[in-house]
């Protein structure tokens, strides 16, 4: 009946749903969960190691070979720590908030295609135990919107943590963090729309399929959306250089100051888990997902290999940012978001649309491009002029006082 037609978008569920299909779905869910957890553990180690190397330190080297089990050791330690509940906290919300940070990360990862060969007409469908399926937990027709929705839901964990702690610094930290996340969501969304425009679909599998044969969105959209997305994603993750949420000098520990023990570990985990998820999304949207040349060996393996390689590259980039860039000031952060990234992403989207319409209507592409760039330049000039006028007005008002 009604909802059944929705599910049928996934080839796995198109036919009769029997026990095997249910088991396959369950298996995929377990794999995705385990994958994300392990990847997060390794990411924590990887980042610490890379960061240490870049700052001429050794980094974790005690637990396991190269200290690779450091995260496990940390986890065990944190698990046995006393779990404090502040006296003035709102108990229910205080306990709920960490979960609200972790769950969206999982849900987002569910729509990421982590393997499959997208070069044929089948579009990434593989055979698993005699059933045809995609190598992703779910492929809803609105996959990309789901990603955006989850990234906006991630705000709750931060916001409620700060409020429910019943203390000053966490509240300030959380208001800062959530304002930052909400601000950068617009840029994130606008650059995603460019991808959707180029790919012509909202499903993640469709977007990956549209990028086969090296037609990656990275250049198909003209690089700018990728850069905007990367910066906005860094801000959305509250990672350096946008980590002023936890600027220790100003806010103690930020929104999770009052958290300890397992609950603190969950925030710590969520932060890195979100980093992994966001990297996976960037790979899917811009870097062709599992697309890549098939060299030797089984075909299905290479999709996964390429996906991982790209994921590692991005994770390294995030660690690199952290080691290299100094932290932004709050007003700089807001200026960058509102006055640079959002106009840039919007302008670029309009340019892309103009080119698309132009080619549909058979206009001269060079003319369209010239006119489009000129219009954007004019818009930018207006923006700069308006900013200058506003500043002068403020100064006048200040002099008046």
């Amino acid at each position, binding site marked *: 009946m009604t909802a059944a037609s929705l599910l049928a978008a996934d080839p796995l569920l198109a036919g009769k749903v029997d026990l095997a299909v249910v088991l396959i779905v369950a298996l995929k869910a377990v794999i995705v969960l385990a994958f994300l957890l392990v990847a997060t553990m390794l990411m924590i180690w990887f980042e610490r190691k890379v960061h240490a190397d870049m700052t001429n330190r050794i980094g974790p080297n005690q637990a396991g070979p190269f200290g690779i089990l450091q995260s496990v050791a940390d986890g065990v330690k944190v698990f046995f720590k006393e779990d404090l509940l502040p006296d003035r906290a709102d108990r229910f919300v205080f306990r709920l908030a960490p979960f609200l940070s972790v769950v969206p990360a999982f849900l987002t990862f569910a729509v990421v295609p982590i393997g499959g060969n997208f070069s044929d007409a089948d579009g990434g469908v593989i055979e698993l135990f005699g059933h045809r399926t995609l190598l992703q937990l779910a492929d809803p027709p609105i996959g990309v919107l789901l990603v955006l929705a989850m990234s906006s839901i991630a705000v709750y964990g931060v916001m409620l943590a700060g409020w429910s702690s019943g203390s000053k610094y966490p509240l300030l930290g959380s208001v800062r963090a959530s304002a930052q996340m909400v601000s950068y969501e617009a840029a994130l969304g606008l650059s995603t729309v460019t991808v959707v425009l*180029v790919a*012509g679909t909202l499903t993640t599998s469709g977007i990956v399929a*549209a*990028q086969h044969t090296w*037609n990656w*969105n990275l*250049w*198909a*959209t*003209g690089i700018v959306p990728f850069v905007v997305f990367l910066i906005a994603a860094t801000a959305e993750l509250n990672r350096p250089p946008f980590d002023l949420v936890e600027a220790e000098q100003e806010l103690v520990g930020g929104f999770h100051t009052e958290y300890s023990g397992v609950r603190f570990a969950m925030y710590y985990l969520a932060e890195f888990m979100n980093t992994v998820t966001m990297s996976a999304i960037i790979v899917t949207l811009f870097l062709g997902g599992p697309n890549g040349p098939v060299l030797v060996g089984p075909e299905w393996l290479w999709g996964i290999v390429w996906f991982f390689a790209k994921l590692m590259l991005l994770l390294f980039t995030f660690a690199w940012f952290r080691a290299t860039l100094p932290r932004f000031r709050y007003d700089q952060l807001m200026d960058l978001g509102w006055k640079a990234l959002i106009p840039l992403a919007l302008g670029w989207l309009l340019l*892309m649309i103009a*080119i*698309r319409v132009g*080619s*549909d209507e058979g206009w001269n*592409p060079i003319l369209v491009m010239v006119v489009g760039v000129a219009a954007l330049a004019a818009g930018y000039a*207006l923006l700069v*002029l*308006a900013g200058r*006028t*506003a500043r*002068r*007005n403020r100064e*006048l008002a200040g002099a008046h006082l």
Partner: protein
Amino acid sequence: MVGLLAQAGEAARLDTPEVEWTALAPVLVMIGGAVLLMVVAALAPRGSRVGWHAIVTIAVAVAAIATVVPQWNRVGDDGPFSVVAGSVGVDRFSLFLTVVICASVVIATLFTDGYLRREGLEGAEPYVLMLLSASGGLIMASANDLIVMFLGLEILSIAVYVLAGMHLRRVRSGEAAIKYFVLGAFSSAFFLYGVAMVYGATGSTNLVEVADFLARNTLADSGLLVAGFALLLVGFGFKVAAVPFHSWTPDVYQGSPTPIVSYMASGVKAAGFAGLLRVFVVTFGDYRLDWQPIVYWVAVLSLLVGAVLAVVQTDVKRAMAYSSINHAGFILMGVQAASDRGVSAALFYLAAYTFMVAGTFGVLTVVGRRGDGHHQLSDYAGLGRREPLLALALVVFLLAQAGTPLTSGFLAKFYVIDAAIESRSFWLALVAMLSAVISAFLYLRIILAMYGSSDDAETADGAAATAGPRLRVPAAAGIALVIAVVATIGIGLVPDPLSETARDATPELVASGD
């Protein structure tokens, strides 16, 4: 970029509807003008002496009126038509109300300029919001689809909520805004529920399709539709300030900046009635027996409550709020008649009322002085001697509102009562005349206060004269008052052009050509 060009051919072409720009011209001019004003205001340094914000606003509104003329002729030649996939209908009804709403914007703008300077609130935003709000009103007037109607209603309302609270330092302005907003959003939600009901009962939100459906099918059970009518009426009733959805009116009128009230009482009310007439009289015309009784009682209550409560007020602004409820009752009589005569009577009333009420609140703006707080009846004592011209203008407006012969108000009241009698609503007509008599007391009270020669008024006059400087009537406000007075008396003396135009302006629903 490569991918973009490569895939361009693959996508299926979508049949986008033909956009007839000329048909949408009034709305586009208003919206474009608002955006332009906003942009230019952001670029120009603040604090210029000339009120160019107001000048641009008036130019935009006048340009919108100018675009109506060719279309009026086109409708005369080719008949009404609908554009953009049948979501916007252009008929003389919508064009008539477009002019009325734009005129109310012009007059309100002229008062706003002086007000903003007096209160130290200069800026382009009030004008931008007023233009956007009016464009919402224009969308309502020409909506051919309940979705469009609702969006127009919301554009109209949201901008006015903000305008009501625009005077940030005045606590009462904020109070007016929150009251208007909460009750407005509440009534919008009812309206939406009503739209959902109508959609469920008829399977469409397009007014043409709804009317078609209702004409072709006789619903065995019209309960759902009647529920929809009632809920829609809540939404419209709120916008036009009809009893029992009027509770916001006195507080909001009293608290909001006075020139904004002049727009609320004229433009917003006209837009509300535009929707009411088009949805009820035209679309649901076949089911008039179901909704006429509801409108009947709403009209009776508005007439009586508005008149009686207006008389007992001591705050003039508040009294005028109740009087506007009373006027809404009169216009509802035209709706209730559900006939061509009723519609044209309502349109005539709206056009005449726009000038007199906008003018009234314009005088109130000036008398309110800095701080916009001098609205007690005692503040008007002796105005006739201190400011003879201003007082005379107010007398004209008040007499017109009371329905004195030789002013526009007399014929306006005459036409709606005539329409009510034609549709055999004798009791309603009787109630209307009674309420006119009651509310005449209010207007006479104000006039007596202005020209009263009792010792009491004398001392009050003396006190006022010593307490404050002479009232300053800004030039722009003066122009607006002259326009309003001329219109009010002119329509009263030479009513034929307007009444014939109103008679021509019958609403019609036309399906899209495609």
